């Protein structure tokens, strides 16, 4: 009889009193004295550590390493950048899985492949056989490298403390890092098998494993056995080889595409060429597409698919139980058990995870392709049929730092009361609006950086007669580009628009301005649309080629969502066929200040990718953008690119006190007109293309993508208001811009002196813009913002560059522009800083103090207030 194999952590498990079992030939802990239920819940609430050293770790290198891996793995190896990982499968010729695996690229020329413990021999034999035809090598590092998984909301803090490092990896799934442990390298990956949004796997030298394991326990992690590892992955809907992959209950191969993660693990990129199982997989993929499109007529290409299943009746489903729909047997359960969860209280961001345990009987089932989420089915358990339902998923992790169990059938309801009859509804609406306006305009300190208040003149003009009208117009070549209007009664607006253009050209010192877009994101979309159109102007007889590569600020670094593939860029960005990812590359940031673009590293990226569009601009912004430096670089290198600056937040600061975008070499500036700029809520596109430029066609395309591309009615009311705002900006900008930036620096310093943690470079007083970022603790942003709102201080919570997403926000974002406009100066911002510290650090109630402070500052500055103007406003009011 062969003795069971043991990992380097075996003694640690014994010392902890683990219950040991035979797992694929290894003597492993199935649970520790706390039990599987406790271990599962502790991982979800705090952090669990898992000895996964029994898994296989192979290193592939050599001249044809990539070629070899493209041949033996299902996924596209070219999509794995350095410091990235990827889920993949080792296929056989039939499109079944020999194993599922994870590929890690910690070094340029070396790939680490991690495989399941139970399949190590089989995988090793297979890979060694196939590698013979390639100039590549494979080494088994399973013994030298131990592997420990650390998963759960506390995992990041614990690992940071263990290694004394503030930076582990980028806050993105599959990101990698290399840490130092007593002079040795420890590889860290943001990967895991629990569905936790915060989770890491550590690869370390076998000799250090026991010490690191002990330290992790000291720092508050709990040791988790294979039992809870299984319930955690089951809840996350992740496949287990031997259940959802491999052989089915009848001993037949489960097609790879029956496993729902296949679409992330399988690639048909041309770059992969022919690989093991490609033909079979392609056929399966067609079957998968049919199922996803609900085309159930012919499921022969993919008969069955794995779906999450939840019992609605009493009982516990187990692997092997048959699934029925009516009398028809439609499949069987691949994995299932009773899984614990913690109940929550409250809704949305305010939901709180309680300590109250509950159980649910859930699992995964391999069922016919036409069985869909929400279908009611039955599971046969020991001869009895128990009611069940196909669930869309059991767990969601889009609200870090917690993975959230999703109980089938639960809906989060929202109710707003409404009066019984319409007259009362109308009255209530007016009363509530009055209350809301009075509150924000005289009782609160408004520090949301995207917001500004408008002058009475701007507000009133925005609702005068033009707000009911149309004035569509287009430059017509036949009339030497004279504007032709399609409506009557438009003489007034014609003049207004013309004057507005002139004012804005003066403001920006540029050649052209397009004012018909009605939001910042629309302005960006119109520019993207124009760039695609311009790119394809010579050949319109085929599908338009999209933009790529594009260089932007990643949303995590403060880039606005409109410049991301998730926002306006989505319909205009190309997919790079080599990597199968969107052709976007991000500005790298300085190591010591991740709010600042690293100019030297950016130059390298530009030289490598030669982006055709560079988008500067951020919505979390403390510094000027290096437009001048990059313009100089692309001109020197002869790189043909468009430099676009989405100034939205800082539009009102363009000039001597911040930066002059066109003077620095930007081609296009876009923005919303209502943040630091005094306007009503609209958008704007400015360009420096002169009629003589050979690129002037691009500008004209931008104009047509604004109208008729983006709008028909371009909201003439606010257009009129915007002209007054442009007058105000041009007249008062010197005083306003200087005061905003000085106030921001002073405010930042006061907040820091008051004991708060202010982000940015203290040597420049933290900021160069209207914004101040204050760190309040990981995940504490939303609660602090709420508490401040309860005290009439309005800020918004903000995820800083190290944080995973807005629900994990560890900071608040402040802007001084609005209160500067209401007359706040150094003293008032100092008082505000004190009040904020009272709320944030000492949990005091300062609502009355805030009201009093704001109450004395309700007169707006930087607008025309002489008697003649007031008289005209009164006359206008009488027309409401």
């Amino acid at each position, binding site marked *: 009889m062969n003795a069971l194999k043991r990992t380097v952590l075996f003694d640690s498990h014994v010392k902890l009193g683990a219950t040991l079992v035979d797992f694929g030939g290894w003597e492993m802990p*199935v649970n520790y004295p706390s039990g599987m239920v406790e271990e599962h819940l502790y991982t979800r609430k705090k952090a669990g550590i898992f000895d996964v050293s029994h898994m296989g770790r192979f290193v592939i290198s050599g001249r044809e390493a990539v070629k070899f891996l493209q041949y033996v793995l299902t996924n596209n190896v070219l999509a794995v950048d350095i410091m990235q990982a990827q889920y993949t499968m080792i296929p056989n010729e039939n499109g079944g899985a020999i194993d599922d695996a994870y590929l890690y690229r910690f070094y340029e020329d070396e790939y680490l492949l991690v495989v399941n413990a139970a399949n190590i021999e089989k995988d090793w034999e297979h890979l060694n056989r196939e590698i013979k035809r390639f100039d590549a090598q494979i080494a088994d590092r399973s013994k030298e490298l131990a592997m420990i998984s650390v998963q759960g909301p506390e995992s990041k803090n614990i690992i940071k403390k263990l290694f004394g490092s503030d930076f582990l990896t980028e806050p993105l799934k599959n990101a990698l890092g290399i840490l130092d442990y007593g002079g040795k390298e420890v590889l860290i990956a943001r990967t895991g098998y629990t569905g936790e949004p915060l989770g890491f796997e550590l690869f370390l030298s076998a000799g250090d494993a026991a010490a690191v394991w002990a330290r992790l326990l000291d720092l508050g992690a709990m040791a988790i056995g294979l*039992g809870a590892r299984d319930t955690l992955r089951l809840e996350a809907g992740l496949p287990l080889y031997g259940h959802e992959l491999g052989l089915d209950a009848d001993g037949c191969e489960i097609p790879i595409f029956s496993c729902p993660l296949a679409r992330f693990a399988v690639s048909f990129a041309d770059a992969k060429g022919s690989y093991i199982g490609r033909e079979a997989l392609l056929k399966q993929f067609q079957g998968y597409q049919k199922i996803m499109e609900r085309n159930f007529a012919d499921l022969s290409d993919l008969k069955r698919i794995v779906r999450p299943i939840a019992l609605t009746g009493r009982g516990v489903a187990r692997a092997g139980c048959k699934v029925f729909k009516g009398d028809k047997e439609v499949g069987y359960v691949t994995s299932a058990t*009773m899984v614990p969860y913690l109940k929550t209280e409250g809704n949305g961001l305010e939901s709180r995870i309680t300590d109250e345990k509950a159980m649910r009987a859930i699992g995964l089932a391999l069922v016919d392709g036409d069985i869909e989420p929400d279908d009611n089915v039955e599971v046969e358990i020991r001869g009895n049929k128990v009611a069940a339902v196909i669930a869309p998923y059991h767990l969601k992790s889009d609200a870090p730092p917690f993975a959230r169990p999703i109980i089938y059938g639960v809906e989060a309801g929202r109710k707003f009361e409404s009066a019984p009859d319409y007259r009362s509804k109308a009255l209530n609406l007016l009363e509530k609006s009055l209350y809301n306006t009075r509150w924000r305009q005289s009782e609160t300190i408004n520090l949301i950086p995207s917001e500004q208040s408008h002058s009475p003149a701007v507000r009133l003009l925005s609702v005068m007669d033009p707000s009911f009208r149309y004035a569509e117009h287009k430059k017509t070549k036949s009339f030497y580009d004279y504007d032709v209007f399609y409506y009557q009664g438009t003489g007034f607006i014609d003049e207004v628009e013309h004057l507005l253009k002139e004012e804005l050209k003066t403001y920006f010192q540029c050649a052209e301005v397009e004012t018909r877009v009605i939001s910042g994101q629309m302005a960006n979309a119109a520019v993207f649309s124009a760039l695609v159109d311009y790119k394809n102007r010579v050949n319109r007889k085929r599908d338009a080629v999209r933009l790529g590569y594009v260089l932007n600020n990643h949303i995590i670094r403060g880039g606005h969502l409109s410049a991301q593939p998730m926002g306006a860029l989505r319909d205009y960005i190309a997919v790079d066929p080599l990597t199968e990812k969107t052709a976007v590359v991000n500005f790298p940031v300085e190591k010591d200040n991740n709010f600042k673009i690293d100019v030297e590293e950016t130059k390298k990226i530009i030289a490598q990718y030669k982006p055709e569009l560079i988008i500067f601009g951020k919505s979390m912004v403390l510094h000027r953008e290096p437009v001048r430096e990059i313009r100089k670089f692309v001109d020197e290198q002869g790189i043909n690119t468009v430099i676009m600056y989405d100034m939205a937040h800082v539009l009102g600061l363009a000039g001597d006190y911040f930066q002059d975008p066109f003077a620095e070499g930007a081609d296009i500036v876009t923005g919303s007109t209502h943040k630091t700029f005094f306007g009503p809520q609209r958008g704007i596109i400015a360009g420096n293309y002169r009629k003589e430029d050979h690129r002037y066609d691009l500008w004209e395309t931008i104009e047509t993508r604004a109208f008729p591309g983006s709008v028909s009615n371009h909201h003439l009311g606010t257009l009129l208001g915007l002209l007054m705002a442009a007058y105000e900006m041009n007249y008062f900008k010197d005083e306003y811009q200087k005061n905003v930036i000085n106030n921001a620096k002073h405010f930042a310093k006061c907040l820091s002196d008051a004991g708060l943690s202010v982000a940015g470079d203290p040597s420049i007083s933290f900021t160069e813009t209207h914004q101040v970022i204050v760190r309040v603790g990981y995940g504490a942003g939303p609660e602090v913002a709420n508490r401040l709102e309860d005290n009439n201080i309005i800020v918004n919570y903000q995820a800083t560059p190290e944080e995973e997403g807005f629900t994990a926000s560890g900071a608040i974002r402040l802007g001084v522009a609005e209160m500067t406009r209401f007359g706040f100066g150094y003293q008032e911002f100092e008082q505000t800083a004190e009040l904020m510290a009272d709320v944030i650090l000492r949990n005091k109630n300062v609502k009355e103090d805030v009201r009093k402070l704001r109450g004395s500052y309700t007169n707006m500055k930087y607008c025309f207030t002489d008697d003649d103007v007031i008289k005209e406003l009164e006359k206008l009011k009488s027309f409401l």
Partner: protein
Amino acid sequence: MKIVEGLKYSSDHEWIKAEGKTAYVGITDYAQHSLGDIVYVELPEVGAKISKNSAFGVVESVKAASDVFLPVSGTIIKVNEALTEDPALINRDAFENWMVQIEMDDPKELDQLMSASEYKEICIE
């Protein structure tokens, strides 16, 4: 390992507490410990007639389902509903938290079961 005196024990790790013609039946501390966290309990219908050594219910852990056997023949007169709500009660105290109460067909069958000290011995091995 907790073992209560005065009860009778089966080799399948059930205990039985006789009170005249009726008896309470549950699983032992040894059993709950080897099962681990109990996540589900299936109890019989009241009135069911179960013969000696036949399964009267199921106790399920995360990893497996285990039948529970009646040490003597009898009729179910009561089931412990609390276990439906909170199966982990058996883990907390296997002897306090009985599973069923039966009316025994033949109390003399109790003599074929083990005493506390006899049961203790089979647990040690």
